[in-house]
């Protein structure tokens, strides 16, 4: 039930410091509070599962003043967004195949090389951090501003990712994403350059020019790019699939425009790149960061604890270890941790097919100098499987500290439904394999056609030419796979939508909706991660839940830290790039609005 009155905000709740002249409470310092020795008898909100959305929600609620108990049935953090060691992956695969996550995962197939065997192999299980749902972070996004506002970013380390490749005609074309690159790219005709610039100028302010896009609002954007901007297929594909990260040809024009702008307006916020990723692991790391923030804000954490049932009339939650807690507001559950005998867990209609590989190759050839990650996109029809949906591939090298030197992790995924998805994944994997063998091969030096010489006579490999001669190349060398994992993940979020708020309405508390005998009446379920490769849905999803619980999202991460030098980036500067494309487009993301003062350093703390 929603409380009619708003609870006092964080600032109001904070105890008055008696001698505040001499004591400055450092940022993230906890609220003084007596310590309970066991599970408390009463909490405001019980959250089950420590995935990304649940963790952001836990932190937001704790800082708002709610008493949160956050549990996870696993012995690690992260749930459906966990970062796992190889041993943890093995255990997880067994659980999936034993049917422990009926609606959430299926068909897990795992191969692990004997090189990763603790004690005996060349690599240890914990040398690797594998993400169940890897994500990239746009430099201008709502999650980024929450990370800064909450100072959770201080627990984490981020690196840049500027290599985006589109696979076309058997080759990886590197994204031309700066004005400079567009003008210096020898392969682009002058006319194309001009058209591309014209489009980029348009897209940064697209809502204000409905006369251009409205005629195409129900048609694929390709039509507009070709008819209005005279762009050719390679540019269209690059814009839709590498920059826009769309899944297929049929995406509606406004959606694609929004996504293209997301990339472009993120460019140069921190440097000449649009995207970041976190070191040591993706959403699994971020979840831990938000959990820690929640704990500092007063939330209680208990791993290895699972929910048995919730009784909405007495508002008591029962755990499988026999303990119980009374919940004044709400129980929020991740679908992967739904209690036994649940009957309200939402259908997860959409499949995401994932293929995760650990490869014994550094793959530096794909990275920009000084970076350790790349994205390769396989547009529809680019693979020999005749793929209709895009295959997206996110590659992490050892600089990300998720794998040892000389290895890399390849995350492939597709929104293709049904059995042909695996064929697409295999075709993409094969293309990547052949390409990396080709690009890293020592035979290259003998192949004059693809060798050029730099100003000082040093050999330079021309990657475009590489691609062209790629067809004739028969690799001698085979790539060593240290691990290969196929699995299907299910989600209730259709490709492209950001969490459907109606999802949460199924759980309304009117008694006629209660299913007799169900163990999960009256609870709220979170959504499984969607196919979206960025974090863009996370804050939206957490906010919707927050509003359901608190009554308003006004004070969502409305934090001010005692040390005064507050986050200079106001949270209203950033709004979700995808969520708003229907109703209030022009309110959001207009480029160039109030970002003054952002250069101020807010991270350092003097004591």
């Amino acid at each position, binding site marked *: 039930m929603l409380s009619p009155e708003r609870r006092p905000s964080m600032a109001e709740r904070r105890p008055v410091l008696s001698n505040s002249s001499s004591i400055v409470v450092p940022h993230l310092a906890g609220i003084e509070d007596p310590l309970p020795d066991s599970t408390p008898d009463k909490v405001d909100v019980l959250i089950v599962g420590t995935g990304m959305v649940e963790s952001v929600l836990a932190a937001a609620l704790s800082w708002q003043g709610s008493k949160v108990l956050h549990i996870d049935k696993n012995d690690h953090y992260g749930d459906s967004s966990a970062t796992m060691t190889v041993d943890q992956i093995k255990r997880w695969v067994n659980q999936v195949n034993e049917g422990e996550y009926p609606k959430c995962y299926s068909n897990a197939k795992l191969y692990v090389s004997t090189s990763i065997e603790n004690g005996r192999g060349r690599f240890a299980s914990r040398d690797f951090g594998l993400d169940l749902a890897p994500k990239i972070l746009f430099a201008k996004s709502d999650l980024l501003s929450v990370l800064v506002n909450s100072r959770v*970013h201080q627990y984490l380390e981020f690196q840049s990712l500027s290599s985006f490749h589109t696979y076309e005609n058997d080759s990886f074309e590197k994204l031309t994403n700066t004005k400079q690159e567009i003008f210096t790219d020898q392969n682009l005709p002058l006319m194309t350059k001009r058209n591309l610039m014209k489009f980029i100028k348009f897209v940064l302010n697209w809502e204000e020019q409905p006369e251009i896009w409205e005629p195409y609002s129900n048609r694929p954007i390709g039509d507009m790019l070709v008819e209005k901007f005279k762009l050719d297929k390679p540019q269209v594909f690059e814009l839709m699939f590498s920059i826009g990260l769309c899944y297929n040809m049929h995406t509606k024009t406004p959606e694609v425009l929004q996504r293209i702008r997301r990339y472009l307006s993120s460019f140069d916020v921190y440097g000449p790149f649009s995207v*970041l990723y976190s070191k040591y692991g993706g959403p699994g790391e971020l979840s831990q960061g938000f959990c820690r923030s929640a704990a500092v804000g007063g939330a209680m954490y208990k791993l290895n604890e699972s929910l048995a049932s919730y009784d909405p009339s007495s508002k008591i939650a029962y755990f499988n270890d026999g303990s119980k807690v009374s919940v004044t507001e709400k129980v929020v559950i991740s679908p992967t941790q739904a209690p036994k005998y649940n009957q309200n867990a939402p259908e997860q209609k959409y499949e995401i097919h994932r293929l995760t590989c650990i490869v014994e190759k550094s793959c530096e050839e794909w990275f920009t100098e000084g970076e350790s990650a790349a994205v390769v996109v396989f547009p529809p029809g680019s693979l020999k499987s005749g793929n209709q949906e895009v295959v997206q591939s996110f590659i992490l090298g050892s600089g990300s500290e998720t794998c040892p030197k000389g290895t890399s992790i390849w995350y492939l995924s597709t929104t293709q439904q049904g059995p042909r998805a695996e064929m697409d994944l295999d075709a993409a994997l094969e293309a990547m394999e052949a390409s990396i063998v080709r690009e890293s091969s020592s035979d290259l030096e003998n192949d004059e056609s693809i060798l050029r010489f730099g100003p000082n006579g040093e050999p330079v490999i021309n990657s475009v030419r590489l691609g062209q001669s790629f067809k004739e190349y028969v690799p001698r060398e085979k790539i060593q796979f240290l691990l290969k994992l196929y699995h299907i993940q299910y989600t209730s979020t259709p490709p492209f939508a950001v969490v459907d708020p109606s999802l949460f309405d199924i759980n309304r508390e009117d008694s006629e909706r209660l299913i007799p005998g169900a163990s999960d009446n009256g609870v709220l379920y979170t959504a499984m991660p969607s196919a979206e490769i960025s974090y863009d849905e996370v804050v939206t999803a957490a906010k919707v839940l927050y509003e359901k619980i608190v009554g308003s999202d006004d004070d969502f991460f409305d934090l001010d830290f005692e040390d005064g030098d507050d986050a200079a980036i106001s949270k209203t500067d950033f709004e979700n790039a995808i969520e708003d494309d229907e109703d209030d487009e022009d309110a959001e993301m207009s480029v160039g609005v109030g970002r003054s003062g952002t250069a101020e350093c807010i991270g350092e703390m003097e004591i």
Partner: protein
Amino acid sequence: MDCNSSGRSGNRVMLQFKLVLLGDSSVGKSSIVYRFVKDSFDEFRESTIGAAFLSQTIKISGSSEQSETVIKFEIWDTAGQERYKSLAPMYYRNANAALVVYDVTQQDSLTKARAWVNELKNKVGDEDLVICLVGNKIDLCDGDEDKRAVETGEARDYAAEQSLLFYEVSAKTGSGVRQIFESIGEKLYETKKDELAAARNRQMGSSKDQVNVQLQRPSTNDPTSCCY
């Protein structure tokens, strides 16, 4: 390498280390941190849910060299998770040092401290992790040795056997607190200086080392000035 050489000017070397605090509730972890960081003590401090992220620098004289070394500790005090031992790996990942604290007037708290030492040794991969066992609240035993529940010898023997640094301190009076951090700083400096020299030599060569992006520092105030 875990330590960062964040700046060198002349003979000044700045090293940054991550230090985590562990131990039973109310043994005085936060009080030790506050004594070290702010040189203050709060008698009426309720047990903290968690002070999460403080930092303090100290200077150490270094070894034979004439150089001055500044060490910055990034201090992670435990937060609410701790009561269920649900620490996130993020908490101890890349920790260079750990203070495992017990209360000299509570025998039980040493048992807990031993458990934490074992957990650290299992979970932190770094061979060079410096662990310091700290017996706190010795002021309570001043002139009243009856209050003491853990004999100095017992704890010292255990520390020696596990090769831990060992100190008895009082956060209330401040006695011994600084020494903890100084000796940890010196020990870390000893173990890391070879790596540092190696890193310095490497810097002469290629600078392919990857740089982290500081999220609180956007590179520009005006996104319209970007390349488009």
